[in-house]
């Protein structure tokens, strides 16, 4: 249960804070050139959210097993933080997209 969850951090979706900020900046910078950058970024983030939900479910089911409560709490908190990061970046991207689409021509 716990190893499965920690392997989540190896997935491209599970972003650490500085990495995510860098990725978001790249996505915004690339948006001028190609229209697909926003779509791509959103796809990635929604995949991250799915992964993290699965991680949380795994941690909760770990409560029934032999995992110590500290480990379960720790993995849920990790999942929660990654989820919050992903959601914050998604919101930021959506608002950037809207800013561009509402731009006066």
């Amino acid at each position, binding site marked *: 249960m716990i190893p499965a969850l920690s392997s989540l951090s190896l997935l491209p979706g599970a972003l650490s*804070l500085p990495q995510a900020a860098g990725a978001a900046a790249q996505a915004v910078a690339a948006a001028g050139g190609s229209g697909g950058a926003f779509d791509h970024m959103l796809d990635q983030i929604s995949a991250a959210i799915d992964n993290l939900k699965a991680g949380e479910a795994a941690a909760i089911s770990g409560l029934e097993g032999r995992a110590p409560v*500290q480990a379960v709490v*720790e993995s849920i908190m*990790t999942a929660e933080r990654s989820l919050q990061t992903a959601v*914050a970046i998604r919101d930021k991207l959506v608002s950037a997209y809207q800013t561009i689409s509402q731009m006066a021509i």
Partner: protein
Amino acid sequence: MIDPLAASIKIAGSGLEVQSARLRVVAENLANAQSTGAAPGADPYMRKTITFESTLDELAGAELVHVKNIGRDSRPFRIEHDPGSPAADSKGFVKYPNVDTIMEMADLREANRSYEANLQVIKQANNLSSMTLDLLRNAS
């Protein structure tokens, strides 16, 4: 590699696990403070000790703490004269465990304080990371 705040949470988490293991050892010692040997003249329960060591976690790039060893205290047993006890030897002496309840209580308190300190680290790191994330959320 890893986010320093996430690493702090992981380190403090290892502290929580270690201190709860220590609490378990104290609980065993306290519960067995009167456990005599099974046969007449046999050795009673020996007090358990716990030691910790720091280990480098490759993934987090940080020094975590782990239980090094759960050993036995070799101090002499307490001997009392109680001829009626099933564990009494031929002269009527019974060996009682070398557990000092006062010392166990002190150990218990220390484990408790250390656990609280680690919890506080987790709370602070979590708080800081969500505050940092709020920068992204509220700035519009």
